[in-house]
C-alpha cells in the first residue's frame, strides 16, 4: 500500500506538471488532469475501505500507519522528512478532497470553455489560461493531499503554504482585473498573519518537544501539561496553551475565522470552480482538520478550547448576518461558508472534534454543490452575478434548480438531509459543553441557534431571488438562457447524492463508533456522544428541538419576504438603515484594515525604507562592503604580475613566514 499512497499524492502533481509546463492542447490538459485526479480518487476510496472500514494498518506489512517516504536531513536529533500518516481521519479527508476535486475538474471543462473572453485581446496569458487553470487545480489537489497525509509538522507546513500559494494564484487568475489582483494580495497578506502564528506554534512545538513528528509529540504531550512558561516577565502561561493558541491562529487565517476572515469574501474574484474547491470544500477546512489532528494537544488546554469556542461562535453568527444583505450570488454562498466554518470551529472548541470533522465532510459536498450550482447560473447568465438581475430561472435551468434546492435543504439542516445530522450534533454538543461548565459555551449555544434561523433565511433568500419570482434579466440574456452542458450538470448531480445521503449513512460510524479512535483523542469527561438509537430516532429527537423550528421559521420568513410581499424588504431596510449600513460595511473590518493596518504599515515602511534600508543597509552595509571588496579585489589582483621571479619570490616568502611562525628556534 506504500505504492498506492504515493501514487495518490503524486499523480495529481504529474498531471499538473504535464498540463502546465508543456505545450499541450486543451484536450490533453483536461484529459491528463482528470484521469490523474480520478485515479487518485479511486485509489483513495480503496484506501478508505481498507483503513477506515476494515481497520487495516496500511504500511510495513500492515503493522504501522506511518511511512517515511524521504528523509531530507537530520539536524542533531531532529529528522526532517516527508512521510505519511494514514488513519481514518486522513482516509476520510483523502476521499473528500479527491472526490470534490475530481468533480470540479470535470465541471471546469464547461466553465472555462469560453475563458478567452475574460482576457484582453491577444494576451499571451490568456492564450494558455485553460491549460494553466487545470494545472493549478491539480497542483492544489497535490498540495492538499500532502497537507492531510503528513506525519509531521514540517510537511504540514509545506502543504499549508502550498495550498495558500495555489489559492493566491487562483484568486488572481484573471490577472488583468484590478479587483482580482487586489483580492489575491489581500488573501495572501491576511494569511501571512495567520501563518506567522502557525509558524511560531510549530517553532514552539520544536522547542518544547524537540521533535516535529506527530506521534512523538502526542506521546510527550501529557508530560508537558503542567509546564508553565513566562512570555512577558510576570505572566505565567501553560506551554500547551501557548502552542495551541498559536497553531489555532494559523487555522484562523486559513479557515477564515474572525478577525482574519476578511480575505474569503474577496476571494470570490476567482473563477467559480475554485471557489467551490478551495474556498468552500477543502482548503478553508484545513484549519479544522489541523485542530482535529492535534486533538491530543488541544484536549490538554481548556483555555485554548474556550478561545476557539468563542471565535467560532462569533464567526458563525455575525458572518451569517452579512449573507442577508449581499446581492452577488457568490458572495452569499461565501458568507454562508464563513458561518459554517464557524460551526465547525465551535465543535472543535467543545471538544467534539468528530462532530467538527463530520460537518466538514458533509459541508464539503453540499457547499461545493451550491457553489457549482451558482456557477451554473452564472454560466447561463453570461457571467452576471447580481441576483437583482435574475429571478424565475427555475424553468430554464431545471437540473441546476433541483440540485441547488437539495444543496440548500442540506445546508439549512432539513431532517434526513446530511447537513441536519452534522449541524444538530454540533448544537447538541455545545449544549452538553455548557452543562459541563466550559467557558463560552453558553454564548456559543445561543449564537448557533440564532445562526440556524439566519442560515435558513439567507439560503432561501438566495434561492427564491434566483429561481423564483419575476424574471428581471434583460431580453438578450433571456433569449440565450439554457441549461449548461453535461460536464456542468453531471458533477452537480454527483455532488447532490452525497449532499443528501452521506449524513445519515455516516452518522453512526463517525460519531457513535470507534471510527476515529486511532486519530482523534477526546478525554473521557469531554465525551458527548453516548447513546445511539438509529437514524430515525435521532431525527425524531431533532424534531422536538429548537433548531428544526428555527430553520423552518427562516424558510417561511424568506418565502414571505421574497415571494409574497416583495416590497417589504425595502421597507425594512429603510426602517433599520443604521443596521443595514453596518452590515453593508461588513462591520468596518475592511475599512479599519485599510486605514490602520495597511496605511499604518505603509507609513512605518516608508520611514524604515528611507532611513533603515536606503541609508544604513543599502548605503553602508551592502554597497559599502561591496565597494570595499571591489577595492581589495583590484589591489590583490595586481599581485598577480605574471612575472615568474615574483611568483617564486612569493613562495619563498611563504616558506619563511611558516618557518618563523611555527618553528621555535
Amino acid at each position, binding site marked *: 500500500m506504500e505504492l498506492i499512497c504515493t501514487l495518490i499524492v503524486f499523480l495529481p502533481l504529474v498531471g499538473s506538471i504535464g498540463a502546465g509546463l508543456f505545450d499541450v492542447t486543451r484536450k490533453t490538459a483536461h484529459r491528463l488532469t482528470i484521469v490523474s485526479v480520478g485515479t487518485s480518487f479511486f485509489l483513495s476510496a480503496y484506501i478508505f475501505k481498507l483503513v477506515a472500514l476494515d481497520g487495516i494498518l496500511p504500511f510495513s506489512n500492515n503493522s504501522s500507519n506511518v511511512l517515511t517516504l524521504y528523509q531530507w536531513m537530520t539536524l542533531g536529533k531532529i529528522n526532517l522528512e516527508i512521510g505519511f500518516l494514514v488513519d481514518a481521519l486522513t482516509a476520510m479527508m483523502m476521499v473528500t478532497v479527491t472526490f470534490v476535486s475530481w468533480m470540479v475538474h470535470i465541471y471546469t471543462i464547461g466553465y472555462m470553455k469560453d475563458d478567452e473572453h475574460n482576457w484582453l485581446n491577444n494576451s499571451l496569458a490568456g492564450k494558455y489560461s485553460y491549460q494553466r487553470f487545470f494545472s493549478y487545480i491539480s497542483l492544489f489537489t497535490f498540495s492538499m493531499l500532502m497537507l492531510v497525509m503528513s506525519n509531521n509538522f514540517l510537511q504540514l507546513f509545506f502543504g499549508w503554504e502550498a495550498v495558500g500559494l495555489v489559492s493566491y494564484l487562483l484568486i488572481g487568475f484573471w490577472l488583468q482585473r484590478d479587483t482580482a489582483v487586489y483580492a489575491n494580495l489581500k488573501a495572501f497578506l491576511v494569511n501571512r498573519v495567520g501563518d506567522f502564528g502557525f509558524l511560531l506554534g510549530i517553532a514552539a512545538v520544536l522547542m518544547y518537544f524537540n521533535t516535529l513528528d506527530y506521534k512523538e509529540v502526542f506521546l510527550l504531550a501529557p508530560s508537558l501539561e503542567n509546564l508553565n512558561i513566562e512570555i512577558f516577565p510576570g505572566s505565567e502561561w501553560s506551554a500547551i496553551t501557548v502552542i495551541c493558541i498559536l497553531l489555532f491562529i494559523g487555522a484562523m487565517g486559513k479557515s477564515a475565522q474572525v478577525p482574519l476572515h476578511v480575505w474569503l469574501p474577496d476571494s470570490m474574484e476567482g473563477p467559480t470552480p475554485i471557489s467551490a474547491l478551495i474556498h468552500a470544500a477543502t482548503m478553508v477546512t484545513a484549519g479544522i482538520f489541523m485542530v482535529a489532528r492535534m486533538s491530543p494537544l488541544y484536549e490538554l488546554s481548556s483555555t485554548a478550547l474556550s478561545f476557539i469556542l468563542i471565535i467560532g461562535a462569533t464567526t458563525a453568527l455575525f458572518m451569517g448576518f452579512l449573507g442577508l444583505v449581499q446581492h452577488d450570488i457568490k458572495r452569499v454562498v461565501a458568507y454562508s461558508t464563513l458561518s459554517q466554518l464557524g460551526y465547525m470551529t465551535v465543535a472543535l472548541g467543545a471538544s467534539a472534534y468528530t462532530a467538527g470533522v463530520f460537518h466538514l465532510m458533509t459541508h464539503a459536498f453540499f457547499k461545493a454543490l451550491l457553489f457549482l450550482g451558482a456557477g451554473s447560473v452564472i454560466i447561463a447568465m453570461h457571467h452576471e452575478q447580481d441576483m437583482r438581475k435574475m429571478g424565475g430561472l427555475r424553468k430554464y435551468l431545471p437540473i441546476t434548480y433541483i440540485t441547488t434546492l437539495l444543496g440548500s435543504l442540506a445546508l439549512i439542516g432539513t431532517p434526513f438531509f446530511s447537513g441536519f445530522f452534522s449541524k444538530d450534533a454540533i448544537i447538541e454538543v455545545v449544549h452538553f459543553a455548557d452543562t459541563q461548565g466550559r467557558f463560552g459555551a453558553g454564548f456559543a449555544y445561543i449564537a448557533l441557534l440564532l445562526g440556524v434561523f439566519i442560515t435558513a433565511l439567507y439560503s432561501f433568500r438566495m434561492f427564491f431571488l434566483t429561481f423564483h419570482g419575476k424574471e428581471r434579466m434583460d431580453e438578450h440574456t433571456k433569449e440565450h438562457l439554457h441549461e449548461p452542458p453535461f460536464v456542468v450538470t453531471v458533477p452537480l448531480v454527483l455532488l447532490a447524492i452525497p449532499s443528501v445521503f452521506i449524513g445519515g449513512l455516516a452518522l453512526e460510524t463517525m460519531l457513535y463508533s470507534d471510527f476515529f479512535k486511532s486519530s482523534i483523542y477526546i478525554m473521557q469527561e469531554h465525551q458527548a456522544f453516548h447513546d445511539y438509537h438509529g437514524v430515525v430516532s435521532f431525527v425524531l429527537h431533532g424534531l422536538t428541538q429548537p433548531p428544526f423550528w428555527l430553520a423552518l421559521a427562516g424558510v417561511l420568513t424568506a418565502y414571505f419576504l421574497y415571494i409574497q410581499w416583495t416590497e417589504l424588504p425595502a421597507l425594512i431596510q429603510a426602517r433599520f438603515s443604521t443596521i443595514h449600513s453596518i452590515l453593508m460595511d461588513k462591520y468596518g473590518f475592511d475599512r479599519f484594515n485599510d486605514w490602520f493596518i495597511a496605511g499604518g504599515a505603509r507609513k512605518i515602511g516608508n520611514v524604515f525604507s528611507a532611513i533603515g534600508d536606503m541609508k544604513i543597509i543599502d548605503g553602508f552595509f551592502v554597497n559599502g562592503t561591496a565597494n570595499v*571588496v*571591489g577595492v*581589495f579585489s583590484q589591489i*590583490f*589582483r595586481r599581485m598577480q604580475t605574471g612575472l615568474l621571479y615574483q611568483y617564486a619570490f612569493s*613562495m619563498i616568502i611563504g616558506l619563511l613566514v*611558516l618557518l618563523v611562525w*611555527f618553528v621555535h628556534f
Partner: protein
Amino acid sequence: MNIPMSDLYVLLPEIFVLTMACIILIVAVYIPKQLMELNYHLAQVTVIGAAILTLTNLTESSSIVMNNMFIHDPMSILLKAFIYLITFTVFLYSRQYLRARDLYKGEYFVLSLTALLGMQIMVSAAHFLSLYLGLELLSLSLYAMVAMWRDSKQASEAAMKYFVLGALASGMLLYGMSMFYGITGTLELQKISEVIATGKIENTLLAFSLVFIMVGVAFKLGAVPFHMWVPDVYQGAPTAMTLFISAAPKLAAFAMLMRLLVDGLQGLHTDWQGMLMIMAILSMGLGNIVAIAQTNIKRMLAYSTISHIGFLLLGVLTATKEGYSASMFYTIVYALMSMGSFGMILLLSRAGFEAENIDDFKGLNERSPWYAFIMMILMLSMAGVPPMLGFWAKWSVLNQVVASGFVWLAVVAVLFSVIGAFFYLRIIRLMYVDKPEDLTKIVVAADMRIAISINGLGILALGLFPQILFQLCMNVF
C-alpha cells in the same frame, strides 16, 4: 628484494595502465591518420579496465605491499574510482575540442594515462619514494600537456611557469623528506609515524622539516601563498588541459595530503593544524575576493579553485576522522563540479573560438535553455546553494569545524563564501538576463550532450540524496 605474486595482484590496475600507455604510444606511431579514433577508444578501454581491476579487489582493511611501498585501503579505492570516473569523462568532454585544434593525437592520451598512473601511485603511496615518484610522474605529464599546443604562445608561457615553479616546490618537498629521513632513519610513512610517537625527537627539528613538506603539498593543491601558478596555468593552457588539471589531480593531491600529514605525521598535528589554518583563511579570502575582478572565466574558475582548496583544508585541520571524511567529500564534490564547469566552456568553444570570457555566457538561455540550466546547477552548487550537492559539501565541512570548536573559523569561511557567491551568481545573471552577443548555433556531439547532462543533473540529484556519497566517504576512515 623478494616480491610475492600476491603483491603484484594488488598492483594490477597500475600495471595495466602502464602497459596500455605503452601500447598506445606504439599504436599511435603506426596507425594511419583516418584511424586516429582508435587512440581514443584504447584510452577509454584502459580507464574502464583499470576501474574494473580496482573495483574487483575491494577491501575493508588496509594492506601494505611491495616492500612497504604501496598501500591498498578503502580510501585509495574510493579515490581511484572517482579518478577513473573523472578521467573517463574528461576524455569524453575533450574530444571535440581537441579535434578542432589538431591536438587529438596519441601523445595526449599517452600523457593523460601516465598522469593517471602517477595519480594512482600517489593515492596508494605508503613511502616517501613512491609518493614522490607518483607526484613527479603526474607533474611531468601535466607540464607536457600544457605545452602540447605549440602554436599557442600563452600555453608555452604557462607551461614554462608551471614547470619552473613546480620544480621549486618539488625541491622543497624533497628537502623536507630528506630531513625526515635524517631524523627518523626511514622513508616509510608508518615507521616515521611510530618514531615520532616515541616523543624522543626534538620538536623544533620536526617542525622545521614539516614546513618544507607543507610547501610541496600546498603547491600541488594551489593554496595561498603557493597558488601563483594556478591562474596563469588555468588560463594559458588549452581548455581541455585545464579541465584535466582542475579535476582529478585535486583528488590525488588530497590523497598526498592525507598520506603525508595523517598517515605519516599525525603526531605533529598541532603544528600542521596552524599552518593549514593560515593557508585555508588566506586561500578562501584571496580566491573569493580576486575572482570578482576577473573577466576571463577560466581565470575566474582558477581563483574559485583556490577558494575551494581553502575550504577543503578546513576539514583536514580538525584532525578528526569525521573532518577527513568531510574534506574528502568536499574534494570529490569539487572535482565533479569543476569537471562540469570546464566541460561547459569546452562545449561553447569551437574551431578557432575559445569561449573563455565571462561575456561568452551572455544570453545562453536564449541560445540553449538546457545548457543554461545545467550551468546554473553547476554555479549554484559551486556557490553552495541548497539543495545542490555543493551545499552539502560546505555544510559537512563547516559542521566538523564547528564540532572541533573553531566557530570563528566557520564564520570566516561562511563570510568568504558569501563574497564568492557573487561571481557564481553573476554568471547566472549573464545567462538569463542579458542578450546574447554571439548567435552561433551550439553544435554538440550526442555523447558529450548526454555526459554533461548527467554531470549537471547528478549534482542536483546527489544534492537531494546527499547521504549516498557522504556515506561512502564516511566509511573510508
